[in-house]
């Protein structure tokens, strides 16, 4: 390497350390997902470790975000929740909207809305301080994660392959969460473990 290249190399190394604290998801697919503890909207304590030995789906939502509305008003999200919780999968829906921001509801309101929409999640968590959202690096609503029985993160990304707010898009989209869960339930590995989530920004 000539001097110029070497100098550039060090510039990049230094910049990577100083200028670019890597802001990508705090987690890496294939590695251990962090544990969390929170009280859900029914006052039950929820944590990943309580579900050790099961597949756990984490779904970030904000009922007022048009991208989330697409999946709830079409019934797509409730259908997925029902289908997989019936097969023993734990599904936790998390709202990280801060107080005063879009999608923020107190636990009672959130409980009522979830009921009205016919949500079938195992638990719903109001994460108004954003602690779990930041821990997982949740960027958008929806943003989906799947954790394997021993705590390994096996999926991080979008609900499906067509970013948009139009319900008609759902039929033609590849649902990555469904693909991943079907593979896992059949004892196969997840083909697509990392995608780019789409939607509204999480209103931390």
């Amino acid at each position: 390497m000539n001097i110029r290249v070497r100098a550039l190399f060090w510039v990049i190394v230094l910049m990577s350390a100083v200028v670019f604290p890597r802001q990508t998801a705090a987690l890496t697919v294939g590695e251990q997902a962090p544990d969390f503890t929170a009280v859900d909207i029914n006052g039950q304590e929820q944590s990943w470790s309580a579900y050790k030995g099961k597949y756990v789906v984490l779904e970030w939502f904000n009922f007022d975000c048009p991208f989330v509305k697409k999946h709830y008003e079409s019934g797509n999200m409730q259908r997925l929740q029902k289908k997989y919780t019936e097969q023993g999968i734990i599904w936790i829906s998390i709202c990280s909207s801060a107080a005063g921001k879009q999608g923020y509801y107190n636990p009672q309101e959130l409980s009522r809305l979830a009921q009205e929409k016919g949500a079938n999640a195992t638990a719903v968590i109001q994460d108004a301080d954003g602690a779990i959202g930041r821990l997982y690096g949740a960027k958008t609503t929806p943003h989906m994660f799947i954790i394997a029985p021993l705590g390994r993160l096996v999926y991080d990304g979008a609900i499906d392959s067509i970013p948009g707010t139009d319900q008609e898009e759902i039929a033609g989209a590849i649902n990555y969460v469904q693909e991943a869960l079907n593979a896992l339930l059949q004892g196969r590995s997840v083909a697509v473990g990392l995608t780019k989530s789409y939607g509204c920004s999480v209103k931390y």
Partner: protein
Amino acid sequence: MAKKYRYLIGIIFFLAVCVGTGFAAPVKDAHTRVELITEVSGIQPGRPFWVGLHMKMDDKWQVYWKNPGDSGLATVIQWELPEGFNAGDIQWPFPIRMDYPEVTSYGYEGETILLCELKPPAGLPDGSVQKIKAHVTWLACGNICVPGKADLSLSLTVGLQEPSVNEPVREMFKKTMMDWPLTQSDWVVKAYHEGEYFLLHLMAPQRRFSVPKQIEFFPDANDVIDHKASQSFRKVADGYDLVVSKSSAAKGDISQLKGVLFLDSDEGWQEGRRALAVDTAVLDKSTEEEALEKAAPSALNRVRASSFPSNGNVEK
């Protein structure tokens, strides 16, 4: 009742005026006023013309570029055209980078014009009125996001004579076109893998070039770079080096970088144009440089020097 009729007459009169001037009534939805505009009063058979979707957003509201980044959604225009008409793709002006606490998106604030070239068929009868319709959908975000939609139309009269030009609209179109990425330039862009980063080496066509306030790469594809990470550039002997973080969601090895390079300076890349289209292979830097160094100690510099003026087109 009389008042109501007066109102109706007013609308009819307004619509009649619209038909005559090539303007259609604007629609306001999702904090955005949208309107189809043309610079010509009428159209000629077989002669392409520009139609602009003029979007004016409320203060602090944004709409999105073709790649919206981490959140958001690109504006979509679905044309419904008279028989024989063809519509070209949206010509996107360069976007701005919009940073939110956890995400970074690409789009527009204030107002923007998305231009499409429409080509009418050759056999249009003189004096006929052609109705251009567009179903437009977009997402506008302020503190919250709201999807917008509008059905817009434009009635244009066919004339065999040169149509008259609406100068204010022509000026708006010209200004917008200045924000289109240059597809022909004397700059040479090379991209290299540098571990978790892409290094873009931008070679200037002449020895003297200014130091801009900022250089930003906007990728066409959504999962190539880490939108949130800051991009960093520095001036080097023959141009600039720009370092861009790779996306952790990047699928496989990225062998091609396609997008727009924005340069924040008055003179821009050249002739005041601040956006440059990039479509270049990503090379393995160490391999290429080592091979060149083995061939001759200063071969690399010679190659670079000779490639300055010759390879003028960044499009490959």
